[in-house]
């Protein structure tokens, strides 16, 4: 390689590297950048005002409200249960721990429609649990609780798997130091452990939120497609596509997409923020 060439100049890069780089650009361009551009242009074709109109259609609006509400509920639930589960798995010993640890990954391995089926079997009106709840006026399947269950299942692993490694790697040193300085268990947890776990918890929470926003397969099975009752945005969009109402589908899709992008940026920030303390 000619050392006289400017650093970083086009000609100084080995040919092989260039080929690989071009391939990468091509792939990402084709599969990610182009589709993003396409959908953005198409949605704004009728103008920004038109987009707003599509989003404010009563059915669309309801689906968006429902979707976000459920996602937020899941966020809170997951932060608590996820952290607790990670804690228990890392710090305690109990029978079947290894089995449970393995099963945490199930939502990653099981198709969402199968999840939906499982929930129908277990909590549908014909089942033991379902009929019991039904008698008490709680409808699970084809109703909101069903959606919550489905979401709880598919978003469960995110916070756990995000917090677990951090917890495992955490030096007991800091906790012991806090002990020697006279801190109570609660103080140690809230002032030493929790802050250290915060980036991981937030990352897991962001991932589970984004998953909850977009979840489709399990909800379609468990909650059907009842407008103004159990129709979340993803299901609404699907319905509009099927009815060839592209404009309304695009409107809601853009909202979801924007959220996804925002969450990606957020994840990036969390990563950089936590690196500040970890270098």
């Amino acid at each position, binding site marked *: 390689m000619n050392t006289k060439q400017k650093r970083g100049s086009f000609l100084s890069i080995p040919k092989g590297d260039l080929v690989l780089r071009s391939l990468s650009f091509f792939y990402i361009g084709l599969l990610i950048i182009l589709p993003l551009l396409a959908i953005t242009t198409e949605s704004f074709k009728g103008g920004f005002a038109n987009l707003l109109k599509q989003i404010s259609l009563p059915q669309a609006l309801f689906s968006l409200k429902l979707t976000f509400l459920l996602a937020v509920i899941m966020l809170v639930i997951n932060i608590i249960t996820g952290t607790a589960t990670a804690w228990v798995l890392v710090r305690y010993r109990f029978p079947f721990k290894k089995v449970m640890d393995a099963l945490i990954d199930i939502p990653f391995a099981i198709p969402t429609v199968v999840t939906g089926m499982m929930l129908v079997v277990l909590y549908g009106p014909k089942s033991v649990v379902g009929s019991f709840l039904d008698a008490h006026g709680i409808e699970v399947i084809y109703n909101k609780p069903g959606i919550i269950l489905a979401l709880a299942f598919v978003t469960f692993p995110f916070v756990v798997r995000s917090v677990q490694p951090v917890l495992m790697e955490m030096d*007991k040193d800091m906790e012991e130091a806090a002990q020697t300085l006279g801190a109570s268990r609660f103080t140690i947890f809230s002032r030493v452990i929790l802050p250290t776990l915060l980036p991981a918890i937030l990352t897991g929470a962001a991932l589970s939120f984004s998953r909850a926003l977009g979840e489709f397969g399990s909800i379609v099975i468990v909650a059907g497609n009842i407008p103004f009752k159990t129709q979340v945005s993803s299901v609404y969009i699907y319905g509009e596509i099927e009815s060839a109402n592209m404009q309304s589908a695009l409107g809601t899709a853009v909202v979801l997409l924007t959220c996804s992008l925002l969450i990606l940026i957020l994840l990036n920030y969390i990563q950089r923020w936590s690196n500040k303390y970890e270098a």
Partner: protein
Amino acid sequence: MRLKQTFSSGELTSLYYKHKWISRETMGRWLLVGAVLLWFSLLVLFPLWGIVEETVKKGVTIFISNINTPSSLHAFWLTLVITLFAVVLNTILGTILAVVFARQTFKGKLFMESLIDLPFAVSPVVAGLMFIILFGPNGWIGSWFNAMNIKIIYALPGMMIATLFVTLPFVVREILPVLREFGREQEEAAATLGASRWNTFWRVTLPSIKWGLAYGITLTIARSIGEFGAVLVVSGSIINKTQTATLRIHDQFTDFNYTGAFSAALVLAILSFIILNFIQYLYQKKEVI
């Protein structure tokens, strides 16, 4: 002379586990464990058992007859083909992407890296919509193929592309951090010993990432088999033509053919369990650095 130790109920010793008295702290611990186990069972264990029970209830022969229909077999076949395609392509390209990001520097690298995560953050239905717009008969790319009479949307190519999209991040994300942290020195050593770049990659780099790679591939397979929303939107779910296993389950279910739906679901569930085992095994393997 054994020292008799007494503790006030609030005392903590994380390292002393010989005491026989049950302190308040231990009880709190067991309560937490119990609560977590309960939540877990409710969420995972019971439903899993339910599906097994449901299918077995009707008897094994009915199960088999449901699986054995031509449309059912075609659906599984389609899933297999698409999965194979997605795995092969994303493994090769995922590795290339990881190598490029880990070893090369160029403007906009950080930006491109964060784009890789997009398939994780986007709803599958929205993803399918993006591809309809791009590859549909009136789309930017689709119109070209339309002129040549090649169907992408509502046909196999579209389904493959959609699946490629949703499974894109797995392999990259698994091996990128590994490549970033390790390997540069070994590659340099290989270079000083006269190895070509291909040789170095094949004999030095690849072996060092093999477990992470296997783990990423397994996740890709799982995701590909389970993909539903994007493929549904993009394929039209035409029986015997563009219906994968997951699409078939949905189709059967909405047609009230519950046994058919459950049978297919059970097959996929069993498959998932097998895959889950691999996921677990490979996770352990790759973490032993």
